[in-house]
C-alpha cells in the first residue's frame, strides 16, 4: 500500500511539475496574472508530494518491505537503522528520488525567500526549475522507478554495499545534491533574465546568496567524499581524479568563478553576459556529471548500475536543457550591455583573471576526463588519462591563482595604481617568500615544491589578514566596529584563508608522507618518521552484521605513548566480502594510519601497512573554512533585508 502511495505521489508531482513549468512562464510572457500566480502554489505542492513519495520509500526501508525491489536489493534485516535510512539513496533509483526532492526543496525555498523579486521574474525562475523537475521525474518514472515491486517478496534482502555502511558516505550524496541542484537556481535566474530581457544588478543580487549556498554544500559534499575515501579505502589516498570525482569538481570550479563574477556584476554592472554564461555552465556541468555517472560511458568506481538506455534518455535531456539555454544565450547575449567601465589595473581585471584561470582548469579537467572517450569514438584505440596528467596540469595553474588571491581582494574597483599595491603588499610578499623558503627546513628533507606551496599559503593568509587590519584600523578593533564591516567581507577573507590552509595540507602531505609495508610479530617495533609502532597482536571479534580480525598497536614518540590503534579486517556476513577498516590516529599536524594486511606465519605475524601523513587534516579543515567563509558571505544583511531598504540605494560601491 505505502509503496503504491509513494509511486502515486511521484506521478502527481510530475503532473504538478508540468503545470509549474508551463503556465507561469507563458503567463509572464503574455501578461496573464492568474497564470503568473500559479508559480508559488505549484512549486510548493510539488514539494509536498515529493516529500510524501520520499517518506514512503523511507518507510519501506525502515520496516524491511522486501516486496519493493529496490529495498530488497539494498537492505537486510541485520542492517542497522541509520544505514537503512541512508540506503534510500544508496543506489540509482533512490538517489534519483533524492535528486528530485532536493530540486523541489530548492524551488520551494525560492518561493519563500523572494519578497523583493518581481512576480513575473519569479514566475520564469520557477517555471525553468519546473522544467528540470519534469525531466528528472519522467526519467525516474519511466526508467528508474524505486517503487517497483517483486512478485514474490524475498525473505531476506541483499544488504547495502558495506562500503556505503558508513556515516561519511551516508551524508555525502545529500550534500553533493544540495550543491549540484542548488546551481539550478542561478541557472533559472539567468534563463529568466534572458527570457525577460532584463539583466541588471538586481538580477545578480538575487542570484548571489543562492549560488553561494549551493557552493557551500558542494564544497562540503566533495570534501566529505575525499575524507571518506581516505579513511575507508585503506590506502591513505584522498583524491584520484576519477571521472566521477572530476564530474563533481567541474561544477565546483565553474561555480567558484560564477560566485566571483556575480560579485562584479552586482557591484559594477559589468561582465553581464559572461556571468550569465557561467550560471548556465555551472548547472550544465552538474547535469553532465549526472550523465557521466549513470550512462556507463566512462569506467568509474562510482558508476551506478549503468545502462546505455538510461544514458540515451539523459543525453536527450541534456540536449534539450543545455542546448536550449545555450541557444537562448547565442540569441540574447549580443544585446546585453554593461553599464560601467574599468581600467586595466583594477579589481575587475583581477577577477577576470581569476575567472580565466578557473575556467582553464575546468576545461582542462574536462578535456582529460573525456579524452579517452574522444579517441575511442574516433577509432584511435583506448588510452588512460590519470593522476599523472591531471596533477601536471592542475598544480602549475594553482600558482598564478594563489598569487592572484592575495592581490585581488586588495585591489580597488574601477581603477587602481600598481605602485599603491606594491607599497601595501610588497613587504608581505617578501615575508611570504622568506617564511615559505625557510619552513621546509623543519621537515625530514628540503623540497622546493614544499617551499612554493608554503610561500603561497603564507601569502594568501597575510594578505587576507592585512585586508582585515586595514578595514578595522581606523575604526578600532571593537565589537561595534567589527559589526559595521559587511559580513561578506569577513566571509571572503575567511574563505581565502581556507584556501591557504588547504594548500598547506596538500603540499605537505603529498611531499612528506611516509609509508611502509612491514611484517611484524607480536612485541616487535618499527620506527617510521620518528614514531615507534609496536605490534601487540590480532584477535577475533563480532560486529552487528560482520565478523572482524582486530589488530592492536601502540604508537610512541620520544618514549611517550601517543596512540593505541585497532586496525580491522571485517567480513560482512551477507555479501561475504572482506573489508579493511584502517586505524587512524588523527592529529592537527599529522595522521597516523595503519592498515591490517594478512596473517604471515604461525608465530602470529601479520603484514601491516604503516603511514605517517603530515598535515593531512588541513586539507579538510581548509575546505571547511572555505565553506564557513561562504556561509558568512551568504548571510550578509544585504540579502536578508533585501527588498525594503536596499532598492533605494541603487548600485552599491
Amino acid at each position: 500500500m505505502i509503496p503504491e502511495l509513494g509511486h502515486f505521489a511521484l506521478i502527481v508531482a510530475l503532473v504538478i511539475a508540468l503545470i509549474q513549468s508551463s503556465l507561469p512562464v507563458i503567463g509572464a510572457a503574455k501578461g496573464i496574472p492568474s497564470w503568473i500566480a500559479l508559480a508559488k502554489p505549484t512549486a510548493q505542492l510539488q514539494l509536498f508530494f515529493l516529500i510524501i513519495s520520499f517518506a514512503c520509500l523511507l518507510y519501506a526501508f525502515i520496516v524491511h518491505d522486501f516486496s519493493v525491489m529496490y529495498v530488497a536489493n539494498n537492505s537486510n534485516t541485520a542492517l542497522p537503522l541509520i544505514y537503512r535510512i541512508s540506503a534510500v539513496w544508496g543506489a540509482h533509483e533512490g538517489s534519483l528520488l533524492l535528486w528530485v526532492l532536493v530540486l523541489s526543496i530548492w524551488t520551494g525555498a525560492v518561493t519563500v525567500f523572494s519578497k523583493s523579486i518581481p512576480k513575473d521574474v519569479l514566475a520564469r525562475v520557477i517555471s525553468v526549475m519546473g522544467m528540470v523537475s519534469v525531466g528528472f521525474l519522467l526519467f525516474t518514472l519511466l526508467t528508474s522507478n524505486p517503487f517497483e515491486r517483486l512478485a514474490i517478496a524475498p525473505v531476506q534482502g541483499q544488504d547495502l554495499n558495506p562500503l556505503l555502511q558508513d556515516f561519511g558516505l551516508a551524508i555525502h550524496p545529500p550534500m553533493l545534491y544540495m550543491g549540484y541542484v542548488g546551481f539550478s537556481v542561478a541557472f533559472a535566474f539567468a534563463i529568466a533574465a534572458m527570457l525577460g530581457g532584463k539583466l541588471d544588478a538586481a538580477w545578480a543580487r538575487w542570484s548571489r546568496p543562492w549560488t553561494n549556498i549551493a557552493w557551500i554544500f558542494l564544497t562540503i559534499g566533495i570534501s566529505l567524499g575525499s575524507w571518506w575515501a581516505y579513511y575507508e579505502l585503506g590506502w591513505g589516498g584522498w583524491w584520484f581524479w576519477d571521472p566521477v570525482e572530476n564530474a563533481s569538481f567541474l561544477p565546483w570550479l565553474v561555480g567558484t568563478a560564477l560566485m566571483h563574477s556575480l560579485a562584479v556584476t552586482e557591484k559594477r554592472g559589468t561582465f553581464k553576459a559572461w556571468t550569465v554564461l557561467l550560471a548556465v555552465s555551472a548547472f550544465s556541468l552538474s547535469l553532465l556529471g549526472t550523465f557521466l555517472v549513470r550512462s556507463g560511458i566512462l569506467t568509474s568506481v562510482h558508476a551506478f548500475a549503468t545502462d546505455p538506455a538510461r544514458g540515451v534518455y539523459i543525453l536527450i535531456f541534456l540536449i534539450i536543457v543545455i542546448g536550449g539555454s545555450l541557444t537562448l544565450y547565442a540569441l540574447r547575449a549580443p544585446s546585453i550591455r554593461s553599464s560601467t567601465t574599468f581600467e586595466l589595473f583594477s579589481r575587475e581585471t583581477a577577477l577576470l583573471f581569476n575567472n580565466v584561470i578557473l575556467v582553464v582548469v575546468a576545461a582542462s579537467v574536462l578535456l582529460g576526463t573525456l579524452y579517452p572517450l574522444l579517441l575511442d569514438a574516433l577509432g584511435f584505440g583506448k588510452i588512460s588519462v590519470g593522476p599523472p596528467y591531471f596533477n601536471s596540469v592542475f598544480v602549475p595553474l594553482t600558482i598564478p591563482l594563489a598569487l592572484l588571491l592575495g592581490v585581488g581582494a586588495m585591489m580597488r574597483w574601477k581603477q587602481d595604481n600598481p605602485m599603491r599595491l606594491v607599497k601595501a603588499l610588497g613587504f608581505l610578499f617578501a615575508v611570504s617568500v622568506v617564511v615559505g623558503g625557510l619552513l621546509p627546513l623543519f621537515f625530514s628533507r628540503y623540497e622546493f615544491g614544499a617551499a612554493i606551496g608554503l610561500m603561497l599559503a603564507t601569502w594568501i593568509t597575510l594578505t587576507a589578514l592585512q585586508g582585515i587590519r586595514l578595514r578595522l584600523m581606523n575604526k578600532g578593533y571593537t565589537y561595534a566596529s567589527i559589526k559595521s564591516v559587511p559580513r561578506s567581507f569577513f566571509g571572503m577573507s575567511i574563505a581565502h584563508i581556507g584556501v591557504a590552509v588547504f594548500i598547506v595540507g596538500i603540499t605537505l602531505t603529498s611531499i612528506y608522507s611516509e609509508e611502509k609495508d612491514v611484517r611484524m610479530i607480536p612485541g616487535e617495533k618499527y620506527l617510521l618518521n620518528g614514531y615507534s609502532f609496536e605490534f601487540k597482536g590480532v584477535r577475533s571479534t563480532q560486529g552487528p552484521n560482520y565478523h572482524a580480525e582486530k589488530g592492536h598497536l601502540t604508537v610512541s614518540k620520544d618514549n611517550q605513548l601517543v596512540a593505541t590503534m585497532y586496525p580491522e579486517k571485517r567480513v560482512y556476513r551477507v555479501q561475504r566480502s572482506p573489508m579493511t577498516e584502517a586505524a587512524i590516529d588523527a592529529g592537527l599536524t599529522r595522521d597516523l594510519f595503519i592498515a591490517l594486511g594478512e596473517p604471515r606465519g604461525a608465530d602470529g605475524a601479520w603484514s601491516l601497512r604503516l603511514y605517517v601523513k603530515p598535515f593531512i587534516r588541513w586539507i579538510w579543515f581548509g575546505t571547511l573554512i572555505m565553506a564557513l567563509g561562504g556561509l558568512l558571505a551568504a548571510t550578509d544583511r544585504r540579502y536578508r533585508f533585501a527588498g525594503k531598504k536596499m532598492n533605494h540605494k541603487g548600485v552599491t560601491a
Partner: protein
Amino acid sequence: MKSIMIILSLFCFLNPNIYAAAVEMKKFESDLHEQRYKNLIDELRCLVCQNQNLADSNSELAQDLRNKVYKMINDGQSDQEVMDFMVTRYGDFVLYRPPFKASTFLLWIGPFIILIIGLLVLVNFIRHRKRNVITALSNNEKEKLKQLLNDNKGKFK
C-alpha cells in the same frame, strides 16, 4: 550475455574485497629500487579493476603484474623497459600518464592552448570594454527624454 558482462564489470565495484589493502612484503636492493617500484605501480593501471592503479588493486592480475614489475626492477631493467613491456601486451591503456604521441597531442597541448585563448579573450575584452558602455544618447533618445521631462513637469512637488 550482456548481463554477464555487466555483472563482471560490476564485480569490482560491488566487491569491496578490492578495497582491502594490498599489503605485500617485497625486499629491495636499495631505496632507489623501492622508490622506482612504488612510482611504477602508481602509474600503471589495473586492467581488471580499472579504476585503480596496480599499487591499490587487490585483483590477482594486479598481484601478478606487480610481481613482474618487481622482478624486472631487480633484474636491472629500466623504468622505460618496464612500461614498454606492459604497453606491448596491454596497449597504452595501461599507462595512467598518456604517452605523448600524435593522437594525444591535443590532450597535452590542450590546456596550454586553452590558457592562451583565455588570456587572449581577456585582453580583447579589456581593450574593447569601452565600446560596451552606453556613453552618449542618440538624437532620438534625447528627444524622448525631453518629452518625458515635459510630460512630468508638474508631477513632483
